[in-house]
Structures are given as structure tokens and as C-alpha cells.
């Protein structure tokens, strides 16, 4: 692409990013508003954070959400990495088309349908709904995202490295552990992060899969948001946005460094 960065480009980028970030910036600013009125500034205060931390219902929901997210994203990473390996390396087997269909379908499936289907399954096998059913539901839809991320890395890496390990006497499992896994590790980690945030964020599927006793944070936020804007929700949102921003920036710095190191090692190996 021949590049001449024009005024038009600068304006559209500026307006675009203002549109993307202004609503969240307003939200963050007004979480420090001392007034209960969310659109009138009445001075700086951190009292909504205090009230939030004293609100047991929110804390309980946050704990449930965190538990679900850790369990489901870990399970999803294991299953999704296996699925990616099967898709890219296992060659032909009976029902391969169905398998890849089942990997890609949840990505485009409306959440209401996935949620409804899951709930009807849990009811027909007589499973009590609660944390465990949310974990199962989240694992199923997030493992597909993990396998897409991991398989895109598996496709690009040199298969001969694995074959060399096998020729040198490694068992397939050893070859996977000592050759493949270190190479695809960044993709596995970003797959886990993706699954984790998808699970933290999910409202619809959790609403279907949750029982009356287990409420996740998005469900709690949703029910209070329906009553309108509240400064407590603003404070909670600010905390969540802050955590995600720090997490994403750290992750991208770490992966940038590991890519740079990998490149340096490859260059050193080529020179030797």
C-alpha cells in the first residue's frame, strides 16, 4: 500500500477512537462523582467504590464468576488445544467434517440459541443447575475460540521440527511436550485469556445455564442496569475496565518480548 497519511485519515482515526473510547471515559470519570445523579458532576469522591466493596451480593457474584471463568477457561484450553491439534495434524478420520463443523458452529451461533440448547440438555439429563452447569456451558463455547487461535499457530509452524524429534526417538507425547508445546505456547496462553474474558463477560449463556442459587456478575449487572444507571455499576465497570486494560497491555508486552527473543534465537541458530 503506498502510504500518504492525509488529513482525512487523521480525522477519521481521531473521530473513530473518540467514538470508541469516549463512552468508557465518561463512565470512569462519573464513577468518582459524589452525587447519586449520574450526569451531574458534584465533586470527587470514592464512596461508590466503598459501597461496592460492602455490597455482599456483588462480591458473591464476582466470586462465582471468577470461579467459573478459571475452571472453564482452563478446561477449554485443554480441550481446545486437543481439538486444534486434531484439526491440523490428525489427518483424515471418520466424521472429520462434522468435527470441524462443531468447532466453527458455536462461533457464529446466537448466544440465545446456544444457551437454550444447553439448558434443555441439562434439564433432560436431570442435572441440577448451578456453578457446574455454567462451567460446562462456558467450556463448550469457549473451547472453539481456543481451538481457532491455537490452530492458526499450528498451521504456520514447521512440521519437520516435530518429525525430527520423532526420528530422534521421542515418543509422540514427548515430541508434543518438548517441541510443539513450547512453540505454540503463546497461542495457547492467548487462547486461555480469550476463553477467560469470554467467560467473565457472558450474560446470555450463563442466564440459561445458571440455577436459582448461582448468579454471575454479568447477570447481577444486567438486572441492576435494567433499572437505570447507578454510580455503583460505574465503579464496578471502572474496576473491570482497569483490570482488563492492565492485563491486555501486559500480555502484549510479554508476547512482544518473547517474539523478539525467539527471532534472536532463530537468527543465532542460522548463523551458527
Amino acid at each position, binding site marked *: 500500500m503506498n502510504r*500518504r497519511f492525509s488529513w482525512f485519515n487523521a480525522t477519521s482515526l481521531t473521530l473513530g477512537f473518540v467514538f470508541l473510547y469516549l463512552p468508557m471515559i465518561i463512565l470512569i470519570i462519573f464513577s468518582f462523582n459524589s452525587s447519586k445523579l449520574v450526569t451531574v458532576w458534584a465533586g470527587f469522591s470514592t464512596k461508590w467504590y466503598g459501597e461496592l466493596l460492602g455490597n455482599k451480593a456483588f462480591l458473591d457474584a464476582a466470586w462465582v464468576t471468577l470461579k467459573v471463568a478459571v475452571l472453564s477457561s482452563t478446561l477449554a484450553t485443554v480441550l481446545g488445544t486437543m481439538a486444534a491439534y486434531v484439526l491440523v495434524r490428525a489427518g483424515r478420520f471418520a466424521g472429520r467434517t462434522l468435527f470441524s463443523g462443531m468447532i466453527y458452529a458455536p462461533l457464529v451461533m446466537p448466544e440465545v440459541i446456544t444457551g*437454550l440448547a444447553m439448558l434443555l440438555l441439562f434439564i433432560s439429563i436431570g442435572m441440577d443447575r448451578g456453578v457446574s452447569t455454567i462451567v460446562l456451558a462456558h467450556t463448550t463455547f469457549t473451547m472453539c475460540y481456543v481451538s481457532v487461535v491455537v490452530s492458526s499457530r499450528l498451521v504456520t509452524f514447521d512440521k519437520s521440527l516435530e518429525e525430527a524429534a520423532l526420528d530422534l526417538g521421542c515418543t*509422540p507425547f514427548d515430541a508434543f511436550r518438548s517441541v510443539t508445546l513450547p512453540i505454540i505456547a503463546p497461542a495457547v496462553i492467548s487462547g486461555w485469556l480469550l476463553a477467560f474474558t469470554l467467560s467473565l463477560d457472558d450474560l446470555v449463556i450463563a442466564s440459561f445455564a445458571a440455577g436459582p442459587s448461582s448468579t454471575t456478575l454479568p447477570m447481577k449487572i444486567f438486572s441492576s442496569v435494567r433499572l437505570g444507571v447507578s454510580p455503583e455499576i460505574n465503579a464496578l465497570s471502572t474496576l473491570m475496565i482497569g483490570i482488563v486494560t492492565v492485563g491486555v497491555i501486559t500480555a502484549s508486552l510479554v508476547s512482544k518480548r518473547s517474539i523478539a527473543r525467539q527471532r534472536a534465537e532463530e537468527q543465532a541458530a542460522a548463523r551458527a
Partner: protein
Amino acid sequence: MNLRRLVLIATPYLWLVVFFLVPFVIVFKIALSDYAISIPPYTPTLDLSAGWEGIKSFFGALDFENFTFLASDALYWKAYLSSLQIAAISTVITLLVGYPIAYGMAQASDEWRPTLMMLVILPFWTSFLIRVYSWIGILSNEGFLNQFLLWLGIIDTPLTILNTNAAVYVGIVYTYLPFMVLPIYSALEKLDGSLIEAAEDLGCSRAQAFWLITLPLSKPGVIAGCFLVFIPALGEFVIPSILGGSSTLMIGKVLFEEFFSNRDWPVASAVAVVLLLILIVPIILFQRNEQKQREANQ
């Protein structure tokens, strides 16, 4: 070796069959059942202990009654049509907003690109629910947008935007914008700059070169972006229920309410089946576009 391979394939395979495929079979089955005041609230239920007779009577009791009900009740087909309309209009708006952003990113210098990329992706990692919620304070009658317009003197009475379809458009455009920008950007990034130079050498103006070269060559990205917005927007539930009003009809919301408020599981399942059938067309078109892209890249 073969046992390992079997375990490797069977574990994710069985998981998806049990937790993804079987649930859909159940949805289809319940869509063909009748509503009943019992637990679970539908008949018939498959009674395997009755043997062959049980299976026969089970299949005999299934019918398409719920689907004829959906077709006869105006609420449902209006909800499908209005979902299609809302999804289509917001896809077009997202394209108009997203293309200049993607184009600007592609024109930016190499040092800036990773930062711009990160700025587009970052909102995607923050909670969807919170991003939708952030618009309530902006769009409401006493919200920031109305205050701003009143201050500018453009309007003298606040506009009603929240709880209308307009707010739903804003919500969809806002939350799905990264899905539109990224595929268009990746198409523009691959574009060979010498083509545009050649066009300009041959007498094209910058605008003509954009219209004749850049736009057609970015078409695959545009198509991918449009599907990535249209498909999830069609079944959207969160945005219409937070930003939309009581007159906003979207099928995702109807399904949710049919299930949780009316507790009519067979009708909710039939609504889901029809939505799936509607979605098959754009999903197949999207897959074809992706396939063509992959072949073109090889």
C-alpha cells in the same frame, strides 16, 4: 500410538457431541412437542421403559403445530423481519463508520500500526455488557448528548433516543465496530501500493484511484466484516433489552422472554429453529468468502 490417537480425537469430539450436537437435537425435538402444564413443561417425553410402543407413540405425538403458530402470530414474523432490518441497517452504518478507520490505519506509518491495532482490539476485551451500558448515560433524556446539543443551541427540547431503535443502532455499531475494522484493515494492508502508483501515473486522481483500485481490492475484507457484524446482530439480546424500548422487536429478545417469562419451551424452541434456518444463508455465504480468500492467498 493408535490408542493415543483415538483418545486425542475422541476427547474433544465426544465433548462437542454431548454438549453441542445433542442439545440441538433436543431443541428440534421440543420444537415439535406440545406445551403442557407439568415438569418439564412439554409433552411427549420419551419413555424408553415402554419399549417399542413408547417410541412409536412418542414420534406419533410430534407435529409442526408450533411452527404454524409462529407463522400465524404476527408478533413472531414481525420480530424476524425487524431483526433482519435492524441487523442490516446497523451493518451498513458500521461499514460507513469502520471503513475510514481501517483505511486510516492502513495509511499510517509502521511505528503507529501496532498501537492503532491495539486501540481497536482493546474494547473487544472489555466487557460487552459494560460497553452497552455506558451508552445509557449518554443517550438518555437528561444524558450527555442531549445536554451537549442543548448547550450548542441546536435543539431546545431533549431528544428521545434511549429506548428507541436508534439507540439499538448506536449500540450495535459501537460494540461490533472492531469486527468491521479488522478484516477491512487486513485486506487494505495486503494491497500492493504500486497498483495505486500505476493508476496515478496513468492519470487517475487520488479519489479515482481509491474508487477504481483500493475499494474493489478491499472487497473481501468488506464482505467478511459485514457478515461478522450482521450474523451476531441478528440474534442479539443484550443490546435491544438494555438500549431498546418496548417497541423494539428483536427475535433474540422474544426468544428469551418466551422462555423465561411465558415458560413456553416448545414455542421458544421453534423460534430458535427458525432463527437457525434464517442464519444458515449468511453463514454459508460467509464461509464461501473465507474459503475464496484462503485459496487466493495460496
